[in-house]
């Protein structure tokens, strides 16, 4: 594999270049201005991300560069927009939190941008080397972010735990890549691996199958799919809440974009060899999300289990291996993004009074602030997949794809687990509506928090009834795939 000069088209990676340059510029800026520049860094970050979204929107559509190692297509562009939103929304809503907990040295924003850069590279990877590169950049940034509150023991614990387990997963992934490398006689580019997998007889190669399964397992860790979910509850709970909100969405979108490419493209010829593993991940994730969530009292921990469950549903879409399933994945991720940031925006607003993490902090909220309680209840019903809210549309897409693909048992398990998990979402509603208020405090929103909650709520209500636009966007993003 040799890279000719004329094969380098930087135009395909303009968004990444912009993020990298701005991140480094902001790092220098914050070093010069010390604390005084925190506000400037904040707004410049917001501006940069808006700019990146614009660049992605108007930029070059489809193409590869660096000898096929870097791919831009409709799918990755859509996912990158989601990643930008998944990064910038937590920043917007948690300005106060960052200030109150002395996290506003400017580096926080910079590291967040590096994490996102890693995710974007991951989504555009066209070979195993670049995939690993993107994944590590993203993961390392997140290890740091999780431990950002140095004064908080739990935050440090979260960072360390994430790091140790994450490194193991990276090792697993790397080991899998090396096996594929060996079995295919030295291929790392996705195109070459896919071509080799298409040759008859190669599927019996145990080394190759093991390699593929290990790669999938490594990616499974990044999206917190059971049985590689152990880190998620502790890290979600311990990390500073804005980081949790960031971590709950962005890395999952990135990892699913990469999985998308692996499943639908690279490993597709050997579908039968690994599909059982992904099905197992899906079932275990849904089960873990449903049953382990039942006993949680900490809202952030609860959301960790809920996210594990959501990953299970998204994996069903991936397993369906059809355009409908892929579209389902994207729709689900989009809706999941807005539900999640909406809930976290409310948690962060409660943090102003040192509350919000325990479910009991929401006791009797409906009697004090009916509107806030209503909004949070709608998010909960949406997560539970109750129509007419957007969460249902997400599940509908996934299950429709599954039934179409003949995966009825998987779909049946999916809906049953969703009924189980409804219990803990309902418990939050119960605490807010049915229990009496035990303290007088009222929650107030920062401007950013208010904006995020309102926007998410409007989208969740609107997409529950009129998801037409969302379906059109995602449909055009998967067109090139099947």
């Amino acid at each position, binding site marked *: 594999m040799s890279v000719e000069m004329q094969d380098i088209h930087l135009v395909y990676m303009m968004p990444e270049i912009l993020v990298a340059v701005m991140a480094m510029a902001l790092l220098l800026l914050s070093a010069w201005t010390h604390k005084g520049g925190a506000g400037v860094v904040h707004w410049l970050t917001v501006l940069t991300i808006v700019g990146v979204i614009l660049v992605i929107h108007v930029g070059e559509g489809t193409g590869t560069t660096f000898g096929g190692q870097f791919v831009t297509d409709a799918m990755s562009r859509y996912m990158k927009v989601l990643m930008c939103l998944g990064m910038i929304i937590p920043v917007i809503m948690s300005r106060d939190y960052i200030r109150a907990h002395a996290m506003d040295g400017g580096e926080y924003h910079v590291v967040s941008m590096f994490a996102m850069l890693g995710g974007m590279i991951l989504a555009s990877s066209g070979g195993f080397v670049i995939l690993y590169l993107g994944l590590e950049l993203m993961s390392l940034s997140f290890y740091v972010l999780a431990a950002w509150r140095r004064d908080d023991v739990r935050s440090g614990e979260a960072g360390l735990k994430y790091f140790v387990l994450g490194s193991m997963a990276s090792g697993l992934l790397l080991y899998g890549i090396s096996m594929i490398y060996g079995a295919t006689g030295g291929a790392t580019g996705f195109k070459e691996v896919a071509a080799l997998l298409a040759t008859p007889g190669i599927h019996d190669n145990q080394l190759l199958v093991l390699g593929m399964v290990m790669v999938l397992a490594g990616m499974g860790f990044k999206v917190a799919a059971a049985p590689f979910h152990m880190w998620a509850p502790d890290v979600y709970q311990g990390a500073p809440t804005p980081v949790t909100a960031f971590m709950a969405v962005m890395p999952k979108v990135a990892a699913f974009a990469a999985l998308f490419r692996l499943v639908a493209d690279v490993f597709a010829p050997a579908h039968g060899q690994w599909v059982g593993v992904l099905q197992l991940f899906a079932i275990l994730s849904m089960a873990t999300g449903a049953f382990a969530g039942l006993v949680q009292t900490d809202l952030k921990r609860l959301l960790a289990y809920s996210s594990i469950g959501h990953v299970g549903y998204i994996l069903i879409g991936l397993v369906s291996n059809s355009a409908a399933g892929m579209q389902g994945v994207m729709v689900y991720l989009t809706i999941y993004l807005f539900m999640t940031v909406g809930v976290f925006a409310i948690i962060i607003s409660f943090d102003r009074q040192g509350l919000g993490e325990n479910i009991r902090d929401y006791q009797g909220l*409906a*009697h004090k602030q*009916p509107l806030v309680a209503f909004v949070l209840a709608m998010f909960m*019903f949406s997560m539970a997949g*109750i*129509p*007419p809210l957007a969460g*249902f549309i997400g599940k*509908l897409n996934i*299950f*429709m794809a599954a*039934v*179409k693909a003949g995966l*009825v048992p998987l*779909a*049946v398990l999916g*809906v*049953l687990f*969703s*009924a189980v998990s*409804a*219990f803990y979402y*309902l418990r939050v*509603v*119960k605490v807010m*509506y*049915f229990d009496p208020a035990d303290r007088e405090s009222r929650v107030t929103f920062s401007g950013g928090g208010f904006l995020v909650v309102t926007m998410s709520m409007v989208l969740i209500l609107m997409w529950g009834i009129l*998801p*037409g636009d969302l*379906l*059109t966007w995602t*449909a055009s993003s998967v067109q090139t795939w099947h």
Partner: protein
Amino acid sequence: MLSLVTFLPLVGALVIAIGVHRNPDRARYAALMVSLVTFVLSLLLLHGFDSDSHAFQFLEERPWLPAFGLHYRMGVDGISLPFVLLTTFLTPICILSSWESVQKHVKEYMIAFLALETFVVGVFCALDFIVFYILWEAMLIPMFLIIGVWGGPNRIYAAMKFFLYTLAGSVLMLIAVLALGIEGGTFSIPKLMEHPFSLSFQMWVFLGFFVSFSVKVPMWPVHTWLPDAHVEAPTAGSVILAGILLKMGAYGFLRFSIPMLPDASREFVPLIFGLSLMAIVYTALVALMQKDLKKLIAYSSVSHMGFVTMGLFTFNQQGVEGGILQMINHGIVAGALFLLVGVVYDRLHTREIVKFGGLVQRMPIYAFIFMVFTMASVGLPGTNGFVGEFLILLGAFLASKAVAVVAASGVVLGAAYMLWMYKRVVFGEIRNPEVSVLADVNRRELVAFAPLIALVLWIGFYPKPFLDIFHTSVQHLLEQAKVVKVGALALK
């Protein structure tokens, strides 16, 4: 027009949510007005309805998600129209009955109730399967809140149980709906009725529907959520629950299982009959032993709904029409009985039968109204209950003599527990000193009961206009059910 009837309550709820501040009376009047206007509009539907045709009428169709072939389709035929009317008829009565008994969060209560009305009417009008499913599930949210916020002491348990039971049932229906839609190539309900499916496919889909509908009806043995929900729900919540929500399950059998899956439906007749008989006899015995008035009526509801499911699966004109009529009857009578319990509960704050006794001495009008509905529930000739039960038993007799005989014993048991309950509550000496100072029903309560009594007697003496609404549609339904769809497939 249908959309107007369906969504007017929701619009009203929004207006109340935005426009009414902290004045409970304004919320009450606004909600009453909205529900009355909706009722009048639904009467216009009845006026414009051509009951000689089995076709869906007042059709509306607009593309919704064309990528999935989903359309916003609405329409009613003779089978769904009565339920639309029942809903719009009972809602104002419910609002009237919660005038004084609901004192906290009145505005939110009215919003929840109107939202509920929209979803339920929508369920009966929807002609697209996904639209139907969305409304069917959406209804859980307001009902959950109504039980949980305004219910009795054990309301949280009851609300959770209600929600999870029905949700667990409904999600399997989602899979069945998706399977049907994908196999049939459309989610349009009228088109799916024409589509032939293989027998094994029908069996699976039937089971998916069966789980959902049987929880909703509820059939024995998945009826256990109902007594809890009824006992804890506020009076109006119980009325809506008994009067309308239970009908959704039976409506599901009627609208989907029988015409779309006729072969599987016939295969499963023994199962349905068995469970129905269990419901009729066993829950009647359970009702006999209840100490709580609301629980007794709740169990009697299960028993009566057993008659309904039996009637629907007799596959003959008498049985099916009797089933539909009995659903309407039960909606009126059980609703009224819950209202009656609410009347004394508002005054005495107890529902235990032993705490009553001798009510007739203080509340003669109340005792009279109570008697009318007790007799209707028992099925005395001249009341609506008689017509419905008679038709069902006639249909059952044509289908299977043994089944009819066992079911008839349920009528006897029904008479036993209702009359015994009536005797203990209304007659006898006054044992509870609080009873001796009770006031009789007031004018507002009388207004709520009057139309119900009128309907009981009207259907009891002259049921023809009611039967006429759905007669043609039922004929058509039975024709659909008679066609062996599997055979049609084999010929292809």
